[in-house]
Every structure is written in C-alpha cells, then in structure tokens.
C-alpha cells in the first residue's frame, strides 16, 4: 500500500521566516513587550495570478518586514527551449506566461525572423500589433475583475464582468479559438475588418473611458486606493520595470489608483488601435513557415500586458544555444519587500494586487 503524504502523521512545518536575513527593527526591552507575528499568505491567493507565498512579519496591523517565496510556478522554460526544436520552442514561448501567450510567441517569432533577416511587411506588423493590443486589453480587463473582487466593491465588479465576456465574443469572431497559431514566421494575410466588429471594439473602448472617468471621481474607491503604494519612476526604471506600472509612476502619482486608471486608459487606447489596425486572417493562407534560424544573436522586446517582454536568442545554425527572457513581473517582484514594509495589512494586499503579477511569468 502506498503511503501517501496525506496519510502521514507529520505536521506540516510552520512557515518560517529567516530572522537574520530580514531587516527587522531591533527588539528592545520596553515597557510594552510586543510580539511580532508572522502571517503567511499563499501560495494560492487572490492577489496575484499564480502562486506566491508572502510572509508578513507584523506588529499588529502594521507590517514590519516582508519575505516573498516565489518559484512555485517555475518550469524552466528557457532551459527547455534550448533542448527543443525551433517549432516546439514556439509553443514553449507562448507558455512562458499562459496569460499572455501571444506576446511570448510574438517575441520568439520576431527574433527568428530577425535572425533570418526577413522584414515583415506593414500589414503583417499591423495584424500582429493588433493581436498584441487585444491580448493586453484582455489581461487588463480580467485584472480589473480580480481587483474589484478583492476590494469587495460589487459595483465595480459587476461593471467589470461585462468586459471579458464581450471581448471574448469579439475575439472569437475575429480569429477563432486560438489566436496564437496565427503567429508564424514570415506569414501575413490581408482582409478587411468587418464593420460590426470594429464598432463593437470602439464601443467597448468608449465604455472603458467612461468607467475610468467614473472611477476617478469615486471617493469611496479613493479611500482605499489613493496615495497608497507610491512608487517612484526612477526606482522602477532602475529595477527594469515597464508597462502600466511604470507609466502610472511617470505620468501620474504612481499609487494604486493611478495604476488602476492607467490600465483602463491603456486598455481603451489598445482597443481603439485594434479596431483601426486589425485585419481578419482568412483560413486558406498559411504558407510554408520556415522554423529555422541561421547563426547569429538577436534580441527583441514586445510590449506585453504587464510590461516589456524581452527575449534574446543566440543560434548556431542548428540549435538554439542560448536564450534569455526578460520578464516584467520578476522585476516588480523584487520591489515588494521595500514597498510593503511599514504599510498596514489591508494596504499591503491592495498594493500587491495592483501590481498585477503573473507568477508563471515571474518564475519563468
């Protein structure tokens, strides 16, 4: 009989915090003998898309030190890519961040095309950019639903739930089930966008702008989100962050509310761009896609939903000898300890939720 772990009598160890590694303020013998408590959030939690364990060392409701445990979703995608064929690596690239498969695959395919010294013509570029923009909008909108659920703001949650449904409808009409498969090297197709879909996308963009306007004046929401989790733009640039978080810090205050509004703005802009630039791929044209790369090195950056996803490939003609991914969520993950120290518990969780971390991407 198998001795499953579930039937063992061992007690799972308590979450341990390495006291020496953390910059805890010194405990002294004062009149008030307080005890710091360790709160463990995760690994499964509503704040991030993916497993992350956050260990908060709290003095009551105030967080004194933070330790993150990431790596639950580490699959070693980069290493797997070096052992796979060129074609299989495309699937691995889209699996880097399961929430943004198009961005990953597009980065890889663009890198391949650069190695092949093939410049795609503008219509292909437009199509790919439109797909990318659409995926960004999908991510922002599903983040909005998660954030509203976390904040327990039912009005926002109900409004936000419409968007993914309608986006999925439009997307299903536009490019069928798997938009990812359309991205292959050196292939481009032409077809005009149907008028109804175009109008639907623009309508959605207008609704997002209206929602953004309402949220900006919402005082109850501002109580929970304004002035919380301020991040300086220089600090973000120093760690290599990008995307809506960086833009919010550059153009606005850089607090939770500005990140929320910035994501809505960018989603609206992306939707309008997609409405203008999208073309519907037709089924017949596929072409023969060369999945190979002559020797060389190249690097490509693609604007994903959480920031710039960068890939640098080195090929020796036959195989991929080196590949590195630059992942936006990983940069933000490193900022968490300094960002959360000194916050209240509720604020800290709001901040983590506002960063929109995708742990699959962060762990790589």
């Amino acid at each position, binding site marked *: 009989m198998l001795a499953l772990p579930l039937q063992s009598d061992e*007690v799972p160890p308590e979450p341990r915090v390495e006291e020496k590694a953390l910059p805890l303020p010194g405990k002294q013998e004062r009149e008030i003998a307080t005890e710091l*408590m*360790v*709160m463990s*959030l995760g690994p499964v*939690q*509503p704040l991030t898309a993916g497993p992350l364990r956050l260990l908060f060392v*709290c003095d*009551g*409701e105030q967080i004194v030190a933070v330790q993150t445990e990431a790596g639950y979703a580490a699959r070693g995608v980069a290493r797997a890519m070096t052992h796979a064929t060129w074609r299989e690596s495309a699937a691995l690239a889209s699996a880097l961040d399961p929430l943004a498969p198009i961005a990953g695959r597009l980065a890889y395919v663009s890198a391949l095309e650069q190695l092949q010294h093939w410049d795609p013509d503008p219509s292909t570029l437009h199509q790919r950019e439109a797909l990318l923009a659409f995926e960004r909008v999908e991510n922002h909108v599903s983040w909005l639903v998660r954030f509203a659920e*976390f*904040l*327990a*703001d*039912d*009005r*926002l949650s109900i409004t936000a739930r419409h968007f993914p449904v309608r986006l999925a409808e439009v997307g299903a009409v536009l490019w069928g089930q798997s938009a990812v498969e359309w991205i292959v090297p050196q292939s481009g197709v032409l077809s005009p966008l149907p008028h109804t879909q175009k109008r639907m996308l623009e309508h959605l963009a207008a609704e997002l702008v209206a929602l953004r306007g309402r949220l900006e004046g919402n005082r*109850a*929401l501002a*109580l*929970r989100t304004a002035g919380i989790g301020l991040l300086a733009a220089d600090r973000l640039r120093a760690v290599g962050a990008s995307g809506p978080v960086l833009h919010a810090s550059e153009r606005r205050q850089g607090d939770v509310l500005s990140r929320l509004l910035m994501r809505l703005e960018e989603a609206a802009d992306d939707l309008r761009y997609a409405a203008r630039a999208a073309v519907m791929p037709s089924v017949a044209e596929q072409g023969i896609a060369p999945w190979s790369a002559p020797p060389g090195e190249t690097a490509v950056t693609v604007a994903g939903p959480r920031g710039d996803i960068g890939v640098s490939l080195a090929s020796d003609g036959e195989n991929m000898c080196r590949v590195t991914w630059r992942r936006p969520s990983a940069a933000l993950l490193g900022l968490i300890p300094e960002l959360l120290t000194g916050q*209240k*518990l*509720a*604020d800290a*969780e*709001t901040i983590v939720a506002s960063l929109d971390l995708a742990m699959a991407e962060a762990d790589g």
Partner: protein
Amino acid sequence: MNTFGVALLVVWSLLICAYGIAVLERLTALGLRHFRAAVLLPLAETVALLRQENLVPRGADRLLFHSAPLVALTSIALAALVIPLGPALRGFDPSIGLFYFIVVLGPFVIAMMNAGWSQNSPEGLSGTFRAAACLISYEVPLGFAVIGPVMAAESLSTARIVEAQTGLWYVVWQPLGFLIYAIAALFMTYRRPFDLPQAGSELAGGVLAEYTGARLLLFHIALNALFFLLTAMGVVLFFGGWQGPGLPGPIWFLVKTVALATVLLWGGRFLPRVRHDQMLSLAWKILLPASLVNVALVGILILVFPGEKS
C-alpha cells in the same frame, strides 16, 4: 405557551429567518434573474458545510473554540424574545425592552472575539482586534440613534414604541437616526462594507478562519439571524412595527423587515471594504457627532410639536 415551547419556537423561527437572510443576500448579489439559484444556494452550502470535516487547530483554546458559536446563538435567541411580532405576539415584554435588546447582544461580540482568539492563528487574532474596533465604533452611535424613538414614545418597551407610531412612523421625522441605526446594523453583523473582522483581506475569514463544518455553519446562522433581528428592531423602532392596514400584524412585520433587509444588503455592497482606521474615523468623526445632532433635533421637535407623539 410554556417556556420550552416558546424557546423552541424562537429557535425555529430564527433558523428560518437566517435562511431567509441568506437567500436575500444571494438575491442581491446575483440579481432577480437567478431566483431559483438564490433560493437553493444556501441549502447547498449548508449541506456542504455539514459534510465538512470538523477541524480543531493545534494549540487552540478548546473551551472557547467550542463554546463561541453556542454563546453567539444563545445571545441572539435571548434578544429575539423582545421583538413584538403583532399586537399581542411577543416573547416577553420587560419595561426595559430596547435596553435589554442592546445589552444582550454584547455577549455576541464576546463570542466573535473568543472565536478569533481561540484559533491560535494570526488571522484570527487580527480579526479579534478588528471586531473590538468594530464594537467601539458602533456602540455609542447606536445608543444615541435609538434614543430618538425612546424619547418620542417615552418608554423603553418595544411594544409601547410600536403603539406610539400609530399616527406617524418615526422614520419620517427622524431620518438621521434611522440612517445611523442602519449603518450600525451593518457594523454589528460584519456586512459589507464593514466586514473586515470576518472576511476582508485576511484570507478565509479572519475571526472565522479556522472554523470548519458544523461550527462554521452555526456562526453563519448566528450572523444571518442577528442581521434579521437588527432589521426587525429597525422596523419596530422606525417603521411602525406590525402596524399596517388590511393584512394582519405579523405579515406586515415580515414584509417590512424583508424590504428593509433588502435595502441594507443591496446598498452596503456598493462601497469597497473600509480599512479599520477608516472605519474608526467614520464612527468617531462622523457618526458620533451626527448622532448627537440627531438627539438634539429629536428633542427639539418633541418639545415644539407635542402633538407628534402618537
């Protein structure tokens, strides 16, 4: 009816009312389209909870852990006795009816705090202190808000307060008092947007974090029943209790309670959850002065219009 019969009746009615409140909660969350789902969901959750394993966390304070839901239910059952359902229909009618109601709900908060403390977990402890913060937030404004109807009816007895509203319901000329009472009712039962001791950012429930199975079910019943009781008392204090033309008293009472509960549940969901210090600010900087103003206003109105009373 002998006391045992009354007790049994009270307990059964509370269970049914708790179920009703759970249904209302689902209805306001899902919308009227999903009526059947809303009615059946609490039943499904009840069955699921009953089938769950009963866990006691390691190092828990066993006496407090096991007794907390029972203390909560006992205090609610005792409080339910003073609500007049009809002209002659009430458990018992002490001369200090309303005061008794507020006082006997004190052990309910104790039970919630015991629940959080006895779990031996950080989430529970945070929930305990947040529940204490909730308590000191709503207690004084609640007291001042209910003084309005007491002053107008010149009695603490709930039956007398209902009878005094034959001419005009109190909500018409004490709207501020009613508003404060409604907010305090949301505080007491940890409903949105004040549910920070119970759900909130702590995962899986704060005060109720380590409770599973039947004990968790008892707590949910207790919280729902308490919400029903508070809405019922709100109807008694501000909406004329069981009075109404045509239908018998208890029916009107039920209709009014359901309407008020729906309004409170629906309205409370539209604000994001408040943080504990924002809740304290709200209570001490806004609610308390408002309730003092309310007392002054009601007093002035009573003096100026002696004909308003009943």
